[in-house]
């Protein structure tokens, strides 16, 4: 199978050499995706620019209608899309159907409605003799780069709000996982749900991404990816002062106070930590357990880890399996590297092993007795590894939680209401969950502080990130 690009409504392979696509559950090659050349990128950007001319003048109501149809399209083709996603990422099929498709469809419908909500200010005479008004407009052609952990969902988080706001898009999925995004773009073209050129998808690698992001013909660059990749995008964009939207890594602290329910928290956090093999920027990856609850919690968490099933034995169709393999060989080696380099003072309480050589699997792992300055605490692991540290006081918890360069998501586990709200205020993270971890709603923003980036996904704020504000001021007196 050769994977197409979709440019100006036409599906055909890009011009460069093939990249091998590997099924991570087996390690075998199942398809090729050509790397887009500079000429391909030029064509895609030109198509977007051309399409933007008319798309920017559609009414919000017209864009709502088109995007609602895309939601229905995803729903109607969920089986095919999940199958393709699973083959490309190793995700378990039943879990992906249940946990990814409904939110995706809902998010698309949300943005369809959001297209018709443009926040502004009252028009008026703020200075005598002049009437001012606010226009909220699309930005133009948006270059978007998506990651391999949730290929289809991340594509939707990127292009749907952008086109809802009236922009045109050139999107490059991750080099390892283009299949589902391309297929969706093909389906949209086949059903003529968008004018040609409004959504373009090109396959390629990091160089393709760089070419795209530095292209003269784009107005803004958005990426969900690693901190390093985000810095590179920002650096490129800075050369021509282009707007940038960055959804980068995370190292979510999970602060478990003495008054939490250890068993319930452990059960929930195992899912929040191992879902998608921990390849989630909001994964519950770094537990801070208060002295009194620490031992009980660690025991409960280790038990959960041991009983959390990967798809290694039963494959992607296994109804009981939660955890896929790591997405690619490089990531698997990176995570094993963290485990192999664990300091002397740390102890592996569960996992730390691979179930076998086939594919890129790692067993759900719990590491305890970690210190704040350890590599595995300061850096995003992006694997099925949950670390645990101790703390005594609220202040210590805050300092440890905030003591990383990331600021995407966090959670607090306590029955004390006042403490929960004080923590919500003190934590430097774009999301603070209280007595839960992971759930997202389309109405609420997702986005980080510090080196987790800037800009929001989901919510009206996400849509607004793809608009520009113009002040019109008219002299009204003679």
């Amino acid at each position, binding site marked *: 199978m050769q994977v197409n690009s979709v440019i100006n409504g036409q599906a055909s392979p890009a011009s460069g050499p093939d990249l091998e696509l590997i099924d991570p559950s087996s390690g075998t090659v199942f398809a090729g995706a050509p790397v887009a050349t500079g000429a391909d990128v030029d064509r895609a950007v030109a198509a977007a620019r051309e399409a933007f001319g008319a798309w920017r003048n559609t009414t919000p109501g017209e864009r709502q209608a088109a995007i*609602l149809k895309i939601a229905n399209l995803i729903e109607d083709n969920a089986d095919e899309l999940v199958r393709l996603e699973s083959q490309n990422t190793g995700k378990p099929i039943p879990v992906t159907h249940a946990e990814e498709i409904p939110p995706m469809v809902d998010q698309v419908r949300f943005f369809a409605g959001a297209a018709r909500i443009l926040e502004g200010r009252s028009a008026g005479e703020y200075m005598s003799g002049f009437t001012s008004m606010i226009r909220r407009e699309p930005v133009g052609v948006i270059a978007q780069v998506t990651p391999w952990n949730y290929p289809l969902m991340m594509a939707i988080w990127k292009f749907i709000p952008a086109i809802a706001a009236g922009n045109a898009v050139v999107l490059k999925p991750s080099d390892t996982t283009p299949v589902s995004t391309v297929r969706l773009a093909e389906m949209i073209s086949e059903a003529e749900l968008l004018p040609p050129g409004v959504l373009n998808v090109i396959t390629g690698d990091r160089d393709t991404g760089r070419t795209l992001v530095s292209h003269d013909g784009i107005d803004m660059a958005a990426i969900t990816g690693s901190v390093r990749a985000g810095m590179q995008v920002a650096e490129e964009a800075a050369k021509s002062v282009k707007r940038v939207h960055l959804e980068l890594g995370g190292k979510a602290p999970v602060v478990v106070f003495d008054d939490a329910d250890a068993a319930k928290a452990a059960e929930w956090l195992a899912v929040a930590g191992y879902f998608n093999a921990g390849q989630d920027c909001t994964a519950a990856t770094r537990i801070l357990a208060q002295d009194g609850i620490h031992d009980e919690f660690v025991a409960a968490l280790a038990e959960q880890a041991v009983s959390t099933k990967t798809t290694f034995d039963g494959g992607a169709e296994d109804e009981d399996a939660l955890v896929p393999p790591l997405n690619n060989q490089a990531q698997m080696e990176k995570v094993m590297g963290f485990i192999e380099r664990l300091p002397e003072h740390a102890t592996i309480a569960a996992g730390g092993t691979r179930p076998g050589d086939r594919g890129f699997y790692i067993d759900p792992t719990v590491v305890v007795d970690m210190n704040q300055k350890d590599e595995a605490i300061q850096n995003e692991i992006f694997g099925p590894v949950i670390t645990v540290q101790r703390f005594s006081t609220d202040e210590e918890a805050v300092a440890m939680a905030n003591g990383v360069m990331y600021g995407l998501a966090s959670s607090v586990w306590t029955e004390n209401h006042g403490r929960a709200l004080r923590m919500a205020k003190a934590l430097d993270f774009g999301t603070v969950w209280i007595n839960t971890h992971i759930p997202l709603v389309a109405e609420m923003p997702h986005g980080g502080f510090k080196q987790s980036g800037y800009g929001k996904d989901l919510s009206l704020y996400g849509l607004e990130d793809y608009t520009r504000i113009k002040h019109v001021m008219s002299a*009204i007196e003679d």
Partner: protein
Amino acid sequence: MLPGQWIDGRPAEGGSGHVLEVANPADGTTVESVTLANGADVADAVAAARAAFRQWSQVPPVVRSDALLALAERMKDRADEYARVETAQTGKPIRLSTGFDVPGSVDNTLFFAGAARHLQGTAAAEWDGDHTSTVRREPIGVVGSIAPWNYPLQMAMWKMLPAVAAGNTVVLKPSELTPLTTLMLAEDASAAGLPDGVFNVLTGTGPDVGEAIVAHPDVRMVSFTGSTRVGHRVAEIAAGQLKRAHLELGGKAPFVVFPDADLAAAVQGAVAGALINTGQDCTAATRAYVHHSLFDEFVSGVARVMDGVRLGDPADPATDLGPLISPSQREKVTAMVERAVAGGATLACGGFAPDLPGCFYRPTLLTGARQDSEIVQEEVFGPVLVVLPFESDDEAIRLANDTRYGLAASAWTSDVRRAHRASREIEAGCVWINDHIPIVSEMPHGGYKQSGMGKDMSQYSFDEYTQVKHVSVDITGVANKEWHRTIYSNPRPDQ
């Protein structure tokens, strides 16, 4: 015979025993018969709405949004049927119901399906340092709504959509002249997934069923579109029980043509603006103020176009203008025109009922009326436009505002400063520049002055149908708070 009520998710016969014949104003034939509601039906409907509120107000907004999306789909599937029935019960031309009423209603539904998930609020923060404040925007409860006969379906939607989208439940009484499309709507709403009791419809007259709904103690808010006279009555009842009242009342829209206007555009705009729905539109262009330099040309232009307007069977796509809603409405229009002429006004065209079955009245243009005359000051609600000249911009604005109404207005000019001045100084909820009538779901519709209070459509309608709660949480955890010292001065443990 059609069950004339929709209560708690089911059709029901009204308990009054009175049968209402819904007539086709084009020929007087009966379209349908319904039995009217009685007091027991009102009580049942309100009780059902109250019971449904508990759950409906607490489901996540997406649930309400999805139900409205499904409703939009159903309405699209039945669009032709809705248009046909709307035309039959109101006499509005099929081109209008097909091109305006039904698509507008569907679009309103799609808009509110989206808007249901955007409840505005101030961000949470510590405004005084010791408390985390958040805002909750919550629905009110059971809303009692009364809709008019001029755009029965669309007015029902304007009442139902923002209320239901925000989590309220509704008991709606359409006009007794035009209940049919509202009953279809109730059926579709249930089929779309609105739980039983969320949207209830009762048929009956204003004094019977309408007042009973408005006065019911469990109805927490009333929403009324209709005449200013009845609006006063509704406001009175609501005020007596301190209920929120949302009122969309009459209008007498001025249509101001400045000397630099595109005259051809103004002529076409005046005809369309005055004749839409046979003038039975609260935003219709009713009083044209035309600069003296353009006056004669404007009058002859409008008269010529009006004379060419085709009256006929509303079900015929070739028909431009349908009948008025009822014989009594036609009597009212006829009498007002006659009084105007008797008072010195001149007919430039029309001014009579043509020889057709049904309550038809020709498009009518009057000149020579005085600013303070009845035909200029009072709402006609018929295909009648009165034209007055003006000299200066100041005079034009003053005359436009010289009315107790304030729903809509238009100004025709190519001059940037005139356009700004008109939009600023005209006292109306909507000011068009170089157009008159077109509205969109995203924008508010609602009047100033005696045209009422509150907005239909747009996110602003949520301001009517929600109430805002401040939640303030102490985050100090301290027993003896700083601010207590203003009240009493116990020595503190640390002193």
